[in-house]
Structure formats: structure tokens, C-alpha cells
């Protein structure tokens, strides 16, 4: 008679000190995060919930379970949208728990995926020029007709991935090395993050942001030695290159001696505000990182705080607003972008249900977890459709890409804008009207 019921607490396993985070002990297992978690809502499985993942990390820290592939799958099925942080009555910073666990586990996927990711994280993202080169190749691939030919030859899975490739904008944004000067009386001097993806895929958004800032009395500079913010690295278990990128940005931006560091990508802003945490163990940078973090402002946050000046013209449009996760949950910015949108004459804002629920973009999640990503996107497009809006506003490049893809794949066929696009359009409309 064999007694095979599993032994539960194999206390001989060793504890994992690096995972034994103070944040773990702030979670009292109340479960209020459950229904706010996109993956739990879909699967209804506790291991795919924030409370479940925290429990798993705690168990791993205590040496009660192995850090095996199954554990890793649970930690990486998370979108890191941090909706659970908005729901948590205890203020548990789940993002830190998940990021630390991922750092311990390393990047997701097969050996090949990991090798590719490692290359991207350490050899491409930190080097804006190399990244620009890759995107130039991509543009040639798309505009030469080569894409159409390969698409017909590719197997289904790769074809789907190819369809997700964004169209590289014709006009890449290359910031001027001179300052963009304030229009009218100067109210602030700011430095702007150019970003890695934004200038290459949404060059016009950076242009619009600069214009809107100028129109609101800001001198805008782009510190030359700035680099990518490191968010993709941090979210995918790579911290060495990320820390180096953070240090480089801190040096570049602090030297500029500005009133604020403006970021128009929610994901980047959230990470840059938290450089202090990333570099907490770095004695030379910890303090500087905190100071840097306190200067970082999302473009919408900054402008709403400053108060818009100048004449806004009519933009007749019905829009709905998608809260980027790292703006709503990561930076607790919800009212400011809405306030700015509502200040545009002629524009109607219709709220969608669950506007702060993730669209499934989540950095490279749509590539690493296409099935879950598409499920969430489909739901998102359905709720957007109910608003009858003709456009959706989402001030973050990842969300914009995902929503463009959603509009194209599932409908409704609507336009996708960054908040800064519409503000600039409104200012231009006023200008055009006054020229008549």
C-alpha cells in the first residue's frame, strides 16, 4: 500500500533571500485585487492573480516551492499593468515584487527568445543610433513591397506577428540640438525624453509635444546624451543594462538644469519616476536618482498643472479615453489628461467602461503572450465600440500601437491619437482660423 500523497512543506529547500521583500509582508491576502487583474478576470485562476503571484513569490522566498518553469510562467503571464496597486487597500507595491522576481528568473520564453531579448536589451535599446538603423531597415522592408511578398510566404504564426509590425513613420523625429524656444513669455524650462520607440514610430507625437510645450511658454531641450528609459529591460528581468541606462539619463538630464523632465510615454514616465528605487543600492546615484525622479512629469500632468495658455480652436470629434496602465496605476494620473481633452472646444469625451483596464499591449507582452494579449484587445475594442467614439486617445506609444492593431483587426475602424496630437491640432485650428 503506497502512500503517495504529496509532502507539502519540504523544509529542506533553501530560502531565497533576494526575494524576501518587505512588500510581501504588506499583503494580507484580502483579495480586493482579484477582479481588477486582467489575467484573473479572463482565466479565474488564482495563480494568475496578483494575490496568487505574491503568494508564489513569498513561498519561493521561504523555500517552499522551486523557481521552476511553472513559477516563471505565472510571473510572466502578468502584464505588469499594476491595476492591482490601484485596488490595494494596503498600498502593496506589486510591481516591485514582480520585477524583482523576474530579475531573479531572467527574461521569458525559449532559449532563442531569451537570446534575442538579451541582444535587444543590451545591444539595441541603450543605443538610439543602432535602433534607428534597425527601424530604417524596417521602413525599407515595408515600403519596397518586400513585406507584401514575404507575408504571402510566411507561416501563419509569423504572418500574424508581421501584421503587428507598426508602419514606421516616414518622418522620424530627430530632435534639434538647439533649444526650442518658448512662444510668448517664458514660464518654464524643460527637458524632454525623446524615447526609443516614440521618435521612430510616432515622430509626429514628439513634434506635437514640443509645439504644445512651446505654445505654453516652455523652452524645450533634448539633452544629447539621453537614452532609452530602460522600462522594457526592467519589465523583462534585465536590470544590468537598465541601471546603466538610468545612470546615463540621470547625468544627461540633471546637467541640463531644468524645471521639469517631460515624458510623453506613460511607461517611460513611470519607470523614470522610480529610478530612485532602481538605484537604491548605488551610493553615488541613489540620491541623484531621487532628485531626478521628482523632476519627471508626464506631459499631460505637467501641462494640466501649469494651466494651458493660448487660444484653442475647435476640433469637432467624439473621442474616448484609454487610461494607459502606467499612467493611471503607475503614476496615479487620471483626471489631468481628461481635463486637457475637455478644454478642447468642439471635442466630446465619452467614457468607456473599464477605461483603466489594460489593452493587452504591455511592452512586448503582445509578442510574448499573443493569445492573452489579443483576448484583452478584443474585449477592449468591444467596449470602445459601445461608446460610438470616432477616435480613442491613449497617451502612450505601446497602447497606441496595440489600439491601431485592434482597430485594424477587430474594428471599430477608428483613429488613435496621443493627447498631444489633439492639443496641437486644437492650437493649429485656432491659428488657421485667425489667419482667415
Amino acid at each position, binding site marked *: 500500500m503506497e502512500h503517495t500523497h504529496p509532502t507539502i512543506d519540504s523544509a529542506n529547500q533553501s530560502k531565497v533571500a533576494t526575494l524576501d521583500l518587505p512588500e510581501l509582508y504588506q499583503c494580507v491576502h484580502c483579495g*480586493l485585487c482579484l477582479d481588477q487583474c486582467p489575467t484573473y478576470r479572463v482565466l*479565474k*485562476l488564482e495563480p494568475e492573480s496578483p494575490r496568487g503571484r505574491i503568494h508564489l513569490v513569498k513561498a519561493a522566498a521561504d523555500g517552499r516551492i522551486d523557481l521552476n518553469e511553472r513559477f516563471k510562467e505565472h510571473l510572466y503571464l502578468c502584464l505588469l499593468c499594476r491595476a492591482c496597486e490601484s485596488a490595494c487597500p*494596503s498600498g502593496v507595491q506589486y510591481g516591485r515584487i514582480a520585477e524583482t522576481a523576474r530579475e531573479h528568473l531572467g527574461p521569458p520564453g525559449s532559449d532563442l527568445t531569451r537570446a534575442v531579448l538579451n541582444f535587444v536589451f543590451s545591444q539595441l535599446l541603450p543605443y538610439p543610433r543602432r535602433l534607428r538603423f534597425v527601424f530604417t531597415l524596417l521602413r525599407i522592408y515595408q515600403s519596397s513591397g518586400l513585406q507584401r511578398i514575404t507575408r504571402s510566404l510566411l507561416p501563419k504564426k509569423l504572418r500574424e506577428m508581421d501584421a503587428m509590425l507598426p508602419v514606421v513613420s516616414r518622418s522620424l523625429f530627430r530632435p534639434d540640438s538647439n533649444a526650442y524656444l518658448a512662444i510668448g513669455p517664458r514660464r518654464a524650462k524643460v527637458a524632454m525624453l525623446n524615447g526609443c520607440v516614440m521618435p521612430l514610430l510616432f515622430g509626429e507625437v514628439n513634434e506635437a509635444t514640443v509645439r504644445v510645450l512651446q505654445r505654453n511658454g516652455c523652452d524645450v531641450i533634448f539633452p544629447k546624451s539621453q537614452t532609452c528609459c530602460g522600462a522594457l529591460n526592467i519589465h523583462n528581468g534585465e536590470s544590468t543594462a537598465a541601471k546603466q541606462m538610468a545612470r546615463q539619463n540621470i547625468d544627461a538630464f540633471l546637467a541640463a538644469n531644468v524645471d521639469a523632465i517631460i515624458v510623453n510615454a506613460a511607461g517611460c514616465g513611470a519607470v523614470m519616476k522610480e529610478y530612485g528605487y532602481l538605484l537604491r543600492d548605488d551610493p553615488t546615484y541613489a540620491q541623484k536618482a531621487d532628485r531626478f525622479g521628482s523632476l519627471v512629469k508626464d506631459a499631460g500632468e505637467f501641462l494640466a498643472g501649469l494651466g494651458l495658455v493660448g487660444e484653442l480652436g475647435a476640433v469637432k470629434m467624439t473621442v474616448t479615453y484609454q487610461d494607459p496602465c502606467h499612467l493611471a496605476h503607475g503614476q496615479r494620473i487620471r483626471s489631468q489628461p481628461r481635463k486637457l481633452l475637455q478644454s478642447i472646444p468642439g471635442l466630446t469625451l465619452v467614457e468607456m467602461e473599464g477605461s483603466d483596464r489594460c489593452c493587452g499591449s504591455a511592452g512586448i507582452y503582445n509578442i510574448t503572450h499573443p493569445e492573452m494579449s489579443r483576448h484583452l484587445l478584443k474585449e477592449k475594442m468591444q467596449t470602445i465600440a459601445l461608446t460610438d467614439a470616432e477616435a480613442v486617445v491613449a497617451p502612450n506609444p505601446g497602447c497606441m500601437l496595440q489600439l491601431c492593431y485592434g482597430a485594424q483587426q477587430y474594428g471599430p475602424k477608428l483613429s488613435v491619437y496621443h493627447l498631444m496630437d489633439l492639443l496641437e491640432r486644437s492650437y493649429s485650428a485656432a491659428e488657421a482660423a485667425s489667419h482667415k
Partner: protein
Amino acid sequence: MTRGELVIALRATIGDRYVLVEKEDVIVYEQDGSIFQVMPEIVVLPANAEEVAAVVKLAQQANVPIVPRGSGTGLAGGAVPAEGGIILSLARLNRILKIDLQNRIAVVEPGVINIDVTKAVAKDGFFYAPDPSSQAACSVGGNVANNSGGPHTLAYGVTTNHVLGVEVVLDDGQILWLGGEVPDTPGYDLCGVFVGSEGTMGIVTKAVVRLMRTRESVRTLLAIFDQMDRATQTVVDITGAGIIPAALEMIDRTTIEAIETGAPVGFPRDAEAVLIVEVEGLIEHTERSMKLVRDICTRSGAREVRVAKDETERQLLWKGRKGAFGAMGALAPNYYVQDGVVPRSKLPEIMRRIAEISKQFNLRIANVFHAGDGNLHPNILFDMRVPGELDRVVEAGAATLRACIELGGSITGEHGVGLEKKAYIGLLFNEADLEAMTRVRRAFDPDGRFNPAKLFPTPLSCGEIRRQPASIPAGLWI
């Protein structure tokens, strides 16, 4: 049937994805909202009543216990598999099957989140009344099992007053309805027996719930006190004046500290206690009641009375109150919540006793409770990692419950008995009472397969808080 055969059969019935056996999957089901931990061997998530019935039959063949689980937000260990076995999660049975506004009912599956019932009918001017603080996450099925209450229990009663019928799966896999869509079905009130049975009689797979009409107006105030005695006396004075508010809640200084640290809503950190008082009804009525309540608060010594000026401010007050338990994590890694009840008039007395107990055991106790119906929630704050602390916590918990009973009260208002209070149920019921309850339970579940080792008295040792599954009879997993 061996364990392997059972797993294969379960997988064949409800699909691979929803039968969990790996340690990295099942370990997260070892705990609910309480501090108890026992690991299940298997977790299953069926999709409908038929699959639930199939799981129950297989469990019978394999002779393993079944513990139903909703969202796992319970505070008494009700969803902890005390004797191992199968956790049957109802989370995937989450459809609202029918909304019938003319007859003011909804038919829902047990995994539906409490707040989603109200959300589904709010635009038509209706709501589902039972509103546990965890309502943004807890399930209707879990509410039915625990006969849950909430802040508005004062005016509307508990879950059993809002459930007209349940579809259940019995121990032999039979699916049947108890009660139904019309009130007052003849014969035994078996639906009433099932509500609050804490998963010990069978599995609820559908419920017919009552919908209430949203009131014309609602007003909410926050009364701030520098002395606990004055706050508790105010509660006595309000109810004594014949006013029945929709809700009458108390939050003490330590709880305010937790809320304001975890997710601040603007409660004054320097107050000894605050009361949230809500009145609702026709506009004339609410205005008059609000004025009366204000006057009583001021007369009884409130330092300040703030009336929520709009829905946003009102929601903020409730967000603070409803997040109170979860916020305890901001003060301590663990908390042990009690659910005692005293007659309202004894509130000043019990609060003094709890303060003494806190001193005596040298433990911080945060109080947040449904003052209007005398339902206390002292949260004993502690750190499981400190050796010996848990023993003191269990003793202090027992002392608060004894104090409640001495003052003419009870040991549970709404959280259920579960694992947590089964040691104390003997303080409340005599042997004849317990024997009668045991017979009712056996009538439904003769083998004791459903949620064993709950509800009925066996001593609770702190070893039960995180322990191995109880040894399973030899030969079970052959």
C-alpha cells in the same frame, strides 16, 4: 480509485487547464482571506453545474473531501481545505443568467462578483443589498455560504433575507432546486437551511437573489471624535432616538492609521474614532434624519461633523471603510479579525474591555465595525514570524469573544464560523443544539465529505495556522 486515476478522470471531465495539481499552482489555494493555511492536493475549476456534479461524484468514488471556494476572501478560513483533498473553485461559474426587474429578482451563478449584480441593474434603478466590505471581489456563492452581511445589513438584513432559492449539487451528484423564483415556497425552508451552511451540505450552483429599488436620495456623514467613549455612546443615542440609518459604522484611531497609510482617503489621523452614518429614502426623510443625526453627534461630543457634499466624497468615505481590513497590511504583516456581536447598548463597555485586552496581551488591536448592529471587528495585529506571538494572538482573540458572550452577545455576526471560531461555538450552543445541527448536516452530507472539520467544535490550536494537511487515512491514495 487512486489519486492518479482521479486526476485523469477529473481532467477528462473538465479539461486539463482547470485541474491543478502542480505545487506551483495549488499552493496559492492554501489560504483565503484569513491566516489559516492548509494545502489542497487538487484544485478544480468546473464551468457549470453538470461539471460540478461530475466532480462531486468522482470525489465520492475516490473518497476525498471537497472544499468549495468562491473568491477566497473569507475571513474565517472557510475555504481552507482543513483535511486536504479537492478545492472546488466556483470562480468560473460567473454568469448572470437572468434579470427580471418586474419581479425584482436576478438568477446568478455562484462565482458572480457581488458588486457585479448591482452594476448590472444600477442603470435601471435597482441594487443588490448585501454589501460585504469585500464586495468588489467576493462572490455571491461565498456570501450565500457565509450568510454574509455588510454595512447596510442594519437596514436591509443579511444574505439570507435576499436569497429566494438555490440550485445545489448534493453529495451523490444530484442537482436540485431549494426554493425558487417566488417567495414562500411551501414545506421546509431548505433554502434557508442551505444559506449560511458554510459549504458543509453541498455546492450551490445557482442562486435567485432579490433586487431592491435604489432610494431616491442618500446622505452620508463622517462624525469625528476625540474619545472612543463618546463615539460609542453616540451610536447608542442615534439608535435610541428611533433612527435606523442605512449604515452606521465605526473606525478607530489604529484603523484610520492603516487606511491613511495604505490608500489614503482623508480620515483625520488624530481622531480617536470616526463614525460613518448613512441615511436614505425620500428626500424629505433623508434631510430630516440627517439633521437629527448631526444634532445627536454634536450633542454627544463629536469634534466635527462632515457631510459628504457629493457622490465622489461619499464614495471616498466608503472606499476607506471597505478597504479597512486589507489596509491592515500597512501596519503589520498579519492580522487576526474577530467577528463578535454585542447588544448595541453594550458598545461603550465592550470597547473598554477590548482596550484592556490589548494592553494585557501587549498586542495592537485595530477596531472597525458595524456599530449600528453591534457587530465588532477587532483586528489583532501581529507578525507571524515572531516566535510565540501567534499564541498570544489566539488567546487575545478568545478573550474578546468571551467578553462578547459575557455581555450578552455572540461570536460571529457575518464572517461565518469556519476554522477560526469552531473552537468557540461550544461557548454559544449546548450539546443538544449542536446535536440538532449535526443531524441536519448529516441529512445532506452523511459522509462528511463537504468542507470537513469546519463549523463544529474541535479545539483550535495555533498549529492549525499553516500546517500540513491532516493525515489522510492510510490506503486512501493507493
